[in-house]
C-alpha cells in the first residue's frame, strides 16, 4: 500500500499530505475507491447507450421488487398469483387488457402483468448466479493458467477452444433431453459452460499482460508466495474485465433460459419464455388479436438482454481506453 500512498502524494499539497498520513489506511483506500468510481462513472455516463441500458435494468429491477409488495398489500393472491391464480371476474379467458388486469390474462386465467413481474425476479437471480459462477471459474482458471503456464494452461485452453466452438443453446437442448433441468441447475450449467469457455481465454490473455508487470516482479522479490501474488496482485487487477464479462454472461443466461422454456424443455414454474410457450400450446401464437399473450413477454426478454449487453459494451469503453472517443 506504500505505492498508493506515494501516488496520492503527487496530487496533494504538503499540508493535505500531512493530514492524510494521520488517517488510517482503510480510509485512504475508500477514498481512492470512491475517486476511481467517480472517474469511471463519468466515462460511463459519456456513453448514452450505456445509460439507456442501465435505465432498462433499473426498470425491471423495480418491477421485480414491486411484485412481492403488490402481492402482499394490493393484489388478492387468489386472483393475481402468477402460477395458480384465476381471474374469476372475467367471463372469457384470455381476457384483453382492462383496468383490473393491465395486460390482460393468459389462456389459463392468470394475470399477465403479475406473471411478468414475478418472472423478472427469477431472470435476475438466474442471470446473476450464472454470471457469478462464470466469473469465479473464468478468473480463477485464467489467473492460474496465465501464472503457471505449462500443462495446466494447455489443458484449459484446449478445453475452452472446444467449448466456444459448440453452439450453446443446442448443447442445452441436448442436456435437457438427458437430465431434468430446473432453474438452479440451469444457472450452474450455463455458468460452468461459459466459465470454462470464451471468458477464460479473454481473462487469461489479460492476466498474461499483468503477470509481466514490474509490481509482480517486486512482490516476488519481496518473498510473496504464489498464492499471495495471485490473490493480492493478479486477481484484483482482473476484476474490471471479469465484471465486464459478467454482463455478457447475464445476457446469454437470460436468453438461453427463455429459449429453453419457450421450447418447454425446462422444469420451472413461471418465466417469460414459459409465458410464450403457454400461449403457443393453447393455440394463440399467430393470432394478432391476443397480442398481450406474446408481446409483453417477448419484449421483456429482448429488452433485458439488450440492456445488459449495452451496459457491457459501455463498460468495455471504460475499461478499454483504445475504444474511447478521440
Amino acid at each position, binding site marked *: 500500500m506504500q505505492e498508493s500512498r506515494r501516488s496520492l502524494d503527487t496530487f496533494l499539497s504538503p499540508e493535505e499530505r500531512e493530514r492524510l498520513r494521520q488517517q488510517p489506511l482503510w480510509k485512504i483506500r475508500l477514498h481512492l475507491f470512491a475517486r476511481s468510481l467517480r472517474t469511471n462513472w463519468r466515462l460511463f455516463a459519456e456513453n448514452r447507450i450505456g445509460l439507456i441500458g442501465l435505465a432498462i435494468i433499473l426498470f425491471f429491477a423495480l418491477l421485480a421488487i414491486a411484485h412481492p409488495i403488490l402481492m402482499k398489500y394490493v393484489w388478492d393472491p387468489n386472483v393475481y398469483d402468477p402460477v395458480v391464480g384465476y381471474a374469476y371476474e372475467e367471463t372469457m379467458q384470455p381476457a384483453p387488457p382492462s383496468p383490473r388486469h393491465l395486460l390482460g390474462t393468459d389462456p389459463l386465467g392468470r394475470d399477465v402483468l403479475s406473471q411478468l413481474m414475478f418472472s423478472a425476479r427469477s431472470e435476475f437471480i438466474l442471470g446473476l448466479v450464472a454470471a457469478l459462477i462464470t466469473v469465479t471459474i473464468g478468473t480463477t482458471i485464467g489467473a492460474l493458467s496465465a501464472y503457471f503456464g505449462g500443462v495446466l494452461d494447455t489443458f484449459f485452453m484446449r478445453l475452452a477452444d472446444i467449448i466456444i*466452438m459448440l453452439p450453446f*443453446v*443446442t448443447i442445452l*437442448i*441436448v442436456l435437457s433431453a*438427458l437430465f*431434468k433441468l430446473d432453474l438452479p441447475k440451469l444457472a450452474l450449467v450455463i455458468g460452468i459452460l461459459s466459465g470454462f469457455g470464451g471468458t477464460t481465454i479473454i481473462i487469461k490473455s489479460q492476466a498474461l499482460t499483468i503477470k509481466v508487470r514490474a509490481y509482480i516482479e517486486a512482490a516476488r522479490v519481496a518473498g510473496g508466495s504464489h498464492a499471495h501474488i495471485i490473490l493480492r496482485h493478479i486477481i484484483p487487477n482482473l476484476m474490471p474485465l471479469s465484471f465486464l464479462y459478467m454482463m455478457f454472461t447475464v445476457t446469454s443466461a437470460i436468453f438461453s433460459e427463455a429459449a429453453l422454456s419457450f421450447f418447454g*424443455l425446462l422444469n420451472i414454474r413461471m418465466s417469460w419464455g414459459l409465458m410464450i410457450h403457454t400461449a403457443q400450446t393453447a393455440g394463440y401464437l399467430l393470432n394478432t388479436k391476443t397480442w398481450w399473450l406474446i408481446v409483453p413477454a*417477448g419484449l421483456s426478454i429482448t429488452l433485458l438482454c*439488450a440492456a445488459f449487453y449495452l451496459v457491457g459494451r459501455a463498460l468495455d469503453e471504460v475499461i478499454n481506453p483504445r475504444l474511447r472517443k478521440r
Partner: protein
Amino acid sequence: MRRYILRRLIQIVITFFIFITLAYFLLEAQPGDYGQIFLSNPKLTQAQRDALKAMFGLDRPPHERYFRYMSSLLRGNLGISFSNYPRQVIDIIKDRAPRTLFLFLTATVVSFTIGFFTGKILAWKRGKSLEYVVTVGGVTLYTVFTPWFGLMILWIFAATLKLFPIGKFITPTLWRGAPIEATVLFQRMLLTALIALVILFLWLLAALRLNPDRRRPVQWLGVLVVLAGLAAYWIPTGLTRYILDILHHLVLPVFTLTCISFAGTMLLTRNSMLETLREDYIMAARAKGLPEKAIRDKHAARNAMLPVVTSFVFSLAFAIDGGVITETIFSWPGMGLTLLEAALTQDIPMVMGGLVFTGTLALLAHLIADILYAYLDPRIRYG
C-alpha cells in the same frame, strides 16, 4: 500455407474425437440410461429384458461400451431413432442436413457481408446520431429473443400480409404428382448454388486486381453471368416452379437468421475499425491527401477485417444456435427442428446424432474460417 492447413486439420480431427468422447460421457452421466424407457415397461419378461439390454449393449462394462460406440460412429452407424422406429439416425440426418446447411450458409454469407459494410460505415460516422440509431437497432436485433422475433416476422409477413407461407418446406398441393422428390431436388439445388458461389467468389477475387475505377461494372457483370448460368441450367429442366416454391418457403427463415446475426459482425467491425483508425498509416494516408473513401475502404477496412474474421468463429456457434431456433419457429424440417423434437420425445439416439452433426458442422466451419484467416493475414501463414 499447406503446412498450416495440415496442422489445423490434424488439430480438428483430435478435437472431434475429444468432442465425441465428451458427448459420450454426457450420455453415460444421465440418470438411468437410454434403455430405461423400454426397460421400465412392466409387461416385459426377464428374458426379453436381458435381450433388450444386450441389444443396447447395457450388459457390457462402460469402457467396452465406449469403444463400441466410437467404432460404430466411425462406420457411420448412429443407431436407430426411437421416434421414427425402423429408420437409421444417419439416414434421417442425410435427409435433413442439406436443408440446415443451406439455411446456415446463406444466412452466414449474407449477414457477414451486410454486417461488415454497415460496421465500416458506422465507425466512419462516429458520434453522429446515425451511429446511435444503428447501434441500438443492431444490438436490439442481436439480443432479440429469437423465437419472438421469428413469430413477429410470421405475424407481419405471413399471417397479416400473406406474402409468404407460414413455415414448412414445401406446399404439398403443388408437389402432388411432381416428377422429382423434394429432398433430391433440394440436394441438386444446394450443389448448383455452391458451384455458383465458388465461381462468383473467384470472379470477385480476380476483379480485385483491376483498377478500382473499372472494378464495379466487372463485379456486377460477374453476378449477372452467374445468375444467367443458373437460369440456363434450371429452366430447361422444367422444375422451376418447384424450385421457386422451395425458395419461397426459404425467404422468411433466411431473413430472420440474417437479421439476428448481422449485428454481431457489425459491432465488431465498428470496434475494430475504431482501433485501426488510430494507426499511424491512416494518418499518413490522410496526409497524402487520399480521398476519404480510399482511406476507409483500402487502408482501414482491410486491416480492420482481421479481428472480425477471427471473432467470426465465435459467431458461427451463435448462427447455429439461431438456426436451431429459427427452424423451430418456421417448422423448417432441418436438423435443428429434428434435434428439438428428439429432445422433447426422449429419442436419445437421435439427440446424440443431432449433437454429433452440429459439432461436426461447427468444427468444419471453424476450419474454413481458419483457412480464410490464413489467406487474409500472411503473418499467420508463416508463423
